[in-house]
């Protein structure tokens, strides 16, 4: 075994962890299924930089810090394997299996920092399965990687900073945005005012937020959206919507949905560590201590995969987890541990305090929480809300029962797209303090794998 720590994910959290590890003389192996480091926020930033430079331009200032982070990561003596999809992690995290260029590898791990990040909260709407409907983050990812905005007439729909950011980025790239339908309304801002003082401690965050809210592109806007359905035969043709101010129809070729992001808990659940329901962010997340350590020793979860706090916090939590591991290995003294950790732990507290404001302003409206009728909830197995409601009425209790009765969550995405909505459907009091049932067990492989790849797995001891 020649790695002190295996890091899964090369986003801000994973990269910061690796840089910290290498500065303390720890050997880190970093695995990410993407072709380059950066994670979601700094996706394809090296390529973008090269394209822009060839055109005589530079990166926007807000992206420069990502390029700097990647540079420090690449220059550290970390071993980075790109295009490596982790498809299994053993209970407690001592063994990791990943697929790399069609071959499977299984490696032992003394310590693990899982930094898999977040994904956008799926909120099933009628017609959301049609080609032409994507998440807003997907449109952003496409712009980052290919340099092209989504084609045709675009409607952005939902809530959250990333929705507004994407609207702005698409407009700047010359996309034809024909509507920005936001669930957010005056009531949300009112409800959030008690959280303003805490957020004032994160001045930059607040400034960025205000910029997002005030510098939206000049496109038709709807606020206090309560309902929407997407129309089309083989692809998107338009959106029907209802808001507190009235209803309408917008003809369009693409609909970009966004309702905030939630932690990607596949790996932490596979590893069998404790999880808890986060009422403020309405999601499950692994339980971690002040060092990002889960209920399994030396298995850390850093970044948005452990709870949504954004990229700055992701870097801090990535570094913290390495400090803990290094201390256990005797690489740093008690004294330097506390000295190095204190500012990071303070920073995390400050960012977490600001988060309450964002989470309260941008939350999925009650009217979209529970899908109904023909809305496809499980996209993989094409299970509708009506089918789930019927199974629930006939006495299915818990997600496992629902699964057996309707096949909801049995497809290749491993219930990542449907479990939140299915959970809300069987927990009617979810907004009044009723705890939803724990998500169904995750089983390996969490990535598509052929039997051949499984049989030929290379085991390194």
């Amino acid at each position, binding site marked *: 075994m020649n790695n002190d720590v295996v890091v899964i994910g090369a986003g801000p959290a994973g990269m910061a962890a690796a840089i910290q590890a290498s500065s303390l003389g720890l050997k880190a192996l970093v695995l990410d299924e*993407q072709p380059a480091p950066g994670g979601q926020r700094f996706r394809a930033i090296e390529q973008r930089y090269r*394209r822009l430079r060839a055109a005589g331009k530079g990166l926007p200032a807000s992206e420069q810090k990502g390029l700097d982070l990647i540079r420090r990561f690449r220059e550290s003596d970390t071993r980075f394997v790109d295009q490596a999809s982790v498809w299994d992690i053993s209970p407690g995290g001592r063994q990791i299996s990943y697929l790399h260029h069609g071959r499977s590898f299984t490696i032992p791990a003394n310590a693990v920092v899982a930094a898999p990040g977040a994904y956008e909260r799926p909120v099933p709407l009628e017609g959301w399965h049609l080609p032409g409907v994507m998440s807003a983050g997907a449109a952003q*990812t496409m712009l980052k*990687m*290919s340099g092209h905005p989504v084609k045709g007439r675009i409607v952005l729909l939902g809530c959250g900073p990333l929705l507004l950011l994407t609207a702005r980025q698409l407009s700047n790239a010359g996309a034809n945005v024909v509507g920005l339908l936001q669930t957010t309304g005056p009531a949300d801002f009112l409800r959030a005012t008690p959280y303003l003082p805490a957020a004032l401690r994160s001045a930059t965050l607040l400034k960025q937020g205000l910029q997002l809210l005030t510098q939206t592109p000049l496109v038709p806007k709807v606020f206090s959206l309560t309902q929407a359905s997407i129309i089309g035969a083989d692809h998107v043709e338009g959106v029907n919507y209802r808001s507190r101010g009235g209803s309408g129809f917008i003809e369009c070729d693409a609909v970009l949905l966004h309702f905030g992001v939630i932690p990607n808990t596949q790996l932490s659940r596979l590893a069998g560590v404790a999880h808890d329901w986060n009422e403020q962010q309405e999601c499950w997340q692994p339980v971690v201590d002040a060092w990002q350590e889960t209920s399994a020793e030396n298995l850390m979860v850093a970044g948005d995969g452990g709870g949504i706090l954004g990229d700055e916090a992701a870097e801090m939590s990535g570094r913290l987890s390495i400090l803990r591991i290094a201390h256990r290995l005797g690489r740093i003294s008690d004294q330097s541990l506390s000295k190095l950790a204190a500012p990071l732990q303070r920073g995390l507290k400050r960012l977490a305090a600001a988060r309450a404001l964002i989470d309260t302003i941008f939350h999925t409206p009650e009217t979209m929480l529970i899908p109904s009728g023909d809305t496809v909830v499980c*996209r993989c197995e094409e299970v509708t809300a009506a089918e789930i409601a019927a199974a629930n009425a006939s006495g299915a209790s818990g997600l496992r029962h629902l699964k057996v009765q309707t096949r909801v969550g049995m497809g290749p995405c491993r219930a990542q*797209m449907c479990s939140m909505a299915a959970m809300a459907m069987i927990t009617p009091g979810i907004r009044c303090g009723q705890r939803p049932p724990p998500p169904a067990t995750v089983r390996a492989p969490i990535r598509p794998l052929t039997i051949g790849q499984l049989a030929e797995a290379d085991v390194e001891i």
Partner: protein
Amino acid sequence: MRPPHDLPEPPHQVSFRFGDEEIEAWEGETVATALLASGVMITGVRAMSGRSRGPYCLIGVCHECLVEIDGLANQRACITTVRQNMKVCRQTRLRPLTGEDETREQ
């Protein structure tokens, strides 16, 4: 190894086949982003309902972008990096667990 962002030249363009079409892409981008940028929205058809499907999340989560690449089924187009001359096909069904080169997923 020199980090890619320090390379002096701009990224290269590559091309691959999607069915009968020739698709242009940047080296280092994924099959899904290149397809979408070329205006291809539909990457698969659901066997049971006959409904068309296209990429949704582009970060490897939803598995809506499964395509056949160089003969291998169930590849996520949004995670697979483009290679010159690769052959990509629409996938019309989820492959059952029956053979050597077929997936365990179903």
